């Protein structure tokens, strides 16, 4: 069972219920412009409750539930985010959906209705991540161990699981060994790009927020330098080196200013290797810090 944690943003954790549904039937209404920006349609669908990943539902799997949901879409050519958890998915017969819901009620209908669903993903994209989270088991595997256990699926880490990882990052700041083990997993070139884009910035942010100590910072820098050297990382390197790293080190922003000699204590190689990427991304302040 995936634990419930309402204080994080990861849907896998903050949802009370995670259900797998299959669209048995659906009747989709016309788009109706509800504003200059949004159009809405209603879909009357019958879902079969296939599996409960999280939470408690009174009805047994296989139960059918009929629900009317709304889907939104931009009303004009301007593309923007649209509301509604059901909006991103196709609700057509046979479609398999994973619903992330927050509800204090155990009736299937209630869990799937109204504002309770927070996110609806296609089973194709969501189930692997749900399965990864389930892999943590109860009691929960440590994050490094979970990643190690799922190392063969690194490439398929989706955004749900990446958010899951991010949500569990704080547990890595007690023992450097855990963090090192974690870093070894996520700096692995095989890690999915989504996970990399999500987890690395989140790592920086959490470490800033939690006031990480130099060994953790050094280890993160080491991993950062590794991944930004990978191909197809897009703007990740620029953002990590140009935005996140200076703020983690306190060179910019309000975090405590780190001392380079403390960060690189015992890691002269890292200090040397930092030069090139920093120069490459024009991290002038960090370079100055490095040389200070």
């Amino acid at each position, binding site marked *: 069972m995936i634990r419930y944690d309402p*204080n*994080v*943003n990861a849907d896998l954790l903050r949802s009370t219920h995670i259900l797998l549904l299959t669209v048995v039937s659906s009747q989709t209404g016309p788009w109706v412009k*509800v*504003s*200059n*920006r*949004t159009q809405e349609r209603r879909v009357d669908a019958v879902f079969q409750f296939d599996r409960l990943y999280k939470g408690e539902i009174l009805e047994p799997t296989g139960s059918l539930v009929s629900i009317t949901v709304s889907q*939104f879409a*931009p*009303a*004009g*050519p*301007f*593309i*923007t*985010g*649209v*509301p*509604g958890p059901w*909006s*991103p998915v196709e609700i057509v017969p046979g479609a398999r959906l994973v619903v992330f819901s927050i509800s204090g009620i155990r009736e299937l209908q209630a869990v799937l209705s109204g504002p309770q669903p927070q996110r609806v993903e296609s089973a194709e994209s969501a189930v692997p991540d749900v399965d990864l989270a389930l892999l943590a088991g109860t009691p929960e595997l440590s994050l490094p161990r979970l990643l190690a256990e799922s190392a063969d699926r690194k490439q398929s880490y989706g*955004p749900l699981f*990446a*958010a899951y990882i991010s949500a569990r990052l*704080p547990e890595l700041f007690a023992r450097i060994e855990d963090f090192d083990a974690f870093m070894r997993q996520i700096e692995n070139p095989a890690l999915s790009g*989504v996970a990399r*884009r*999500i987890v690395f*910035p989140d790592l*920086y*942010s*959490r470490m*800033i*927020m*939690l*006031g990480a100590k130099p060994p953790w910072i050094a280890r993160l820098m080491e991993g950062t330098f590794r991944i930004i050297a990978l191909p197809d990382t*897009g*703007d990740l390197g*620029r*953002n990590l080196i140009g*935005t*996140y790293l200076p*703020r*983690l080190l306190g060179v*910019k*922003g*309000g*975090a405590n200013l780190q001392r380079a000699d403390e960060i690189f204590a015992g890691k002269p190689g890292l200090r040397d290797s930092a030069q090139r990427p920093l120069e490459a991304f024009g991290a002038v302040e960090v370079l100055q810090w490095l040389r200070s």
Partner: protein
Amino acid sequence: MCRSGSKKSKSKSNSKVAPQTPEPESEPAAPTSAPVTKPSRPVIPPLAMPTRTAWVEPLPPSRPVIPLLVLPPRTLPLPQQFPASRPGPIATCPYATQPTSPPVAVEEAEPVLADVPPPIETPPPKPVEQARLKVKVSIQGDPTHVFASQVTSSLAGSKPTDTNTGIADFGVVAVGKHNITVVVQGKDAEKFAPPRGAVEVTLKDGDDETVPVVLAPITGDLEVTVKGADNKLLGKVGVKVTGTTPGDTPSADGTGISEFLDRKEGPYKIALTLPKSVSDDYAVPPKIDDAQVVVGQKNQAVVILPLRPAPKIVVADPKIIIVKQDYHGKDKPGVKPHRIPVILSAAADYDGEGKFTYPADTVKIYDKKDGTVALPSPFIVKKDELGGRTVYMEAIKNSSGMEATDLKLELEKGTISPKPEVTEKITCVKLKVEIYKSRPAAGGDPVKLADGPKVDPGRPILEQGPDGDHFFAERAMLVLKQAEPASFTGKLALEPISGGVEMFTSLQEKPEKGQTAIDATTLVFANADIDAAKGKTFWVQGKSVSAKMSDTGWVVGVEGVMDDGKTAEGDRATMTVLKAELVLHKSRAVIPADGEPAAFTAAAKLTEARYLHKQDGAKQHGRGMITIKKVKPDGFEGKLFLNCWTVKYAPAYSETKVSASYGLKIFKEEIASGATQAEQAFDADIDHPLTFAVDGMKLWVQGETVSTELRDVQIRLGVRDVDKGCDRDNFTVVRFKKLKADIPSTPANIVRATITGGGSNSPVARHEFKIADAGPADKDCNEKFATNEPLVLVENCIPDDDRINLTVEVEPAGKSIPVRWSVQRFSHVADAQGDPDAIINLTGNSNDPGLVADTGDPLKATLRANAAGSFHIRPYIDCNGDNKYNHNDDTGKRIDREPFLIMNVQLIRVQGVSNLTTTNNTAGTNGTEKTAQDLGGAFGVLQVPTRISTGDFASTGNDAVHMRNIARVIGGGPDGKRGLNKLFSGWANNIQNCATSPTGAGLDITHVFSEATTPPTLHTTVCYFEVNTVKISAPVLDSGAYGPGGTEGTGGNTATSTTGSNDCPCTKTDHASGIGQQWEVTNVDSPGFGINGFHPTIPNAMLSRFRFNINFRCDFIFWTNLQGASDNTDSPACRLYSSVSTNYWDVRFEATYNNRFVETVVDGPRVVPTLDGNETRLAAPVKGGGLETRLPDSLDTLKTHMPWP
């Protein structure tokens, strides 16, 4: 001189005295008054003074000679009345005035002439020779006296004497021895006798002899002189002598002599009979010595009449005794009873005693003036005291009338008859002065003090106030009663015991300005003028505090009746001028260690009064201290009480005693609490023992009922039975209510319509945060933020030009109550839930969040909210003049808080930590997305650009911009997290004006179509924002996607997010310091647009240029919502935004297309971030910063593909 031998004299004498005291013929007369039975002293015989001793011949041997009394040389002085030359014996008596020597004892002698022998017959002699013989008979000392006598010579015979010459001439006789004898004839024979035996004469021849024969007298005279002991010669006293020759003759006037002649020798008893004229003053001596008659002598006896003793009572004028009251003679008040000396005496020597009688039920007498044992009645004045015995007389009862008390003294048991008793008349005057208790609270006449308490301890009275505004002390009724006996004709005098009291007339019970006390020296009243029933009424006022208890008051005496130099005190009304102070204290301005709260002045406590807030159910309001000071002077012991009055000063003064539903309550405890606290009930006794605390009794007054007027409730300190309330403290009970914070909302950056057909986006409704809107509930005065939920705002969210307006109402309304405003940090010092130093000492922080009282209206203030942490905003009434609200002492202990109402305010510091906003240039379609379209004809299938996206909104980290910022948020309380549950944040995104926009404003999403003409005709379509057919300029809110039109930009999270949800993901971690949190708030945006390959209305116009330039601004904003809702739930202050970070991000893409849609990218795709230059800045008001948080939203007003120009 009277000769007793004279019948005439005798008869005369008898005629005067006989009627009273018949004199027996043969018996000696008894004394007229007191016959003496025993001689107390030896008899002194009368003196015999021979004129010629030669002829005294010795008696014949057979007859022994009895010598006459031989007196020693005269050593005794004669009485002055007698000339020294006067011969003769002086008889003395015990009452002689100057008996200095004892009498000389003498032998008893036989009377010489008791028996005269008969003459001896002898034969005649023979003539032998002759001689001549004559016999001359004479009496001793008086040769001229001629007797008729017969002389016989033994030789010559007898011859009578010549009656002229007294010579018996015998002629010639024979010589020889002649024995010559003489026989006295006639009456002289009773007086004289010849010598015993014959006288021998021998004649010789030729002799011619005249033989003298001297007769000896055989009687004597007795002269009795009667005189008083005062040497006054007393006439008309019957003097009776009894003896051989008794007699009775009164004393002669002028000489006091009674003369008894020719008395035969022997003792004579003298008896006196006093005429009234004499007996009034004199008495017969108890013993009169016998008088001794010596023949031939003029015997004298002096009888000295003792003065008859007169009883005498001497009482000095005015012969008034003030009747003793019970208190007289007691230690308290130490006033001796009035006693007057009474001198009892006898006006002459008296050997008896005096008996002094007096009405024992009216007076008592004492040995001494301060004697304690009364003398018995009747009182016997002993003999030896009769010279003057002073007793002191006090009165125990009034006389029945003027001079109606008789004092009598009589003499008795003496040997002398005293004068009759004497009576002295005095007047015993009973005086009465009454003093009355304070007039009963319920009305009616004052009750009179009983006599005991009247004197000890007496009637306390309060010291009168210093001026007409403080004439609070009651006057005491004093009644001077008519003295008893009612007929007393004197004047009564009222005198103050000291200058501490003064008197007013019967019409001046109530002290008022302009009244003048009666001159005490004029308080003298004729008893007759005093009403017998009612007396004479006065009102006594305490003028100055007594130095000690019972040291003043009034006494009444009788004018002119003095005692020890001052008016004898007949009654008194003891008084003590008390000073009973009820101190009204201001509220504490300092910690208790520095002492008690300061006190109002006597004037200020009435004119300013002490404000109290009506106590609430949670007992949160302060009490006002009053102190019952120890009553002066020391020694006061009694009962005090407090009572409550409703007073009104305008338009006219009035007062009403409150007997129920008091506007105040009084407690011993300073701090009200829910625990049972006993009230000090109004009108209940408060013991004031001798041991009453020197620094007084501190009590605390609590407001119960809201005043209707200023200082309309008053506590008075009364002294039971003395004063119903002298010192007074005024109070005004207030109640604050409707404390309101009028909170501005962030105004629209640009005022315009919300949407086409809609209303204006301005003004933006403000919020009101109200405390005690319907009257204060318990929570409204609670400092606890958990109870009195705070207004939660972001620090510094308020622009200086639009502050929070604070207003409050206070009851009683419209009374210009001097309300002040206070801000107080809710500090850990005061409460564990208060702010720790880590918050208090935040950089740039202060304890004043910009509270500014309105200079014109004390019920208004403004608040900037420009400090962080927890604050109590209080309208209050400054009750100590220190111009600040005094809350706790330095130890955090609650004190006597001033009237207040609390609005708790939680101001949250929001400060940027890390601005982690990043952009992706390659996200989304990374340029335009093209779709193969069969355009037919010559075109065939071409890759036609259909859209451009800069991200996927799919939480994959693949978005044009990833707004991410970490901010430190610090609320209040020990962990700095209080209030954070009401804090919300998000990213507010605006579309800015883009410089490349063809319209000059807004965004630049521009299509240029080329119509295949020669030369080609270009048609441009643009996008712009339009409301009500009017193009509007940016910035325009570009927020989340939920809700019907007109929802965005209406508060809360409707101004944030650019994803399908208005909420921006937020990750919260507690700050490592333990204070506050760090919030990471993210948001993504990935603008995109559908590209038209052909002109919407000109089919043959193909896209030749497409520009997708949009300038964005995103602000990391915060707001609060007291309902805890992140959305626009209408609650303070969901429309008031602060920005902690402002970033800009511009999307740039431009491409050109040939007639086969072959794309040449001119610019981009790129997303250009411009981050806030001060990413650690504090949150600042959005207002004025150019950020639009109000509708209309961009997409709600966006017009796309609009031909341009």
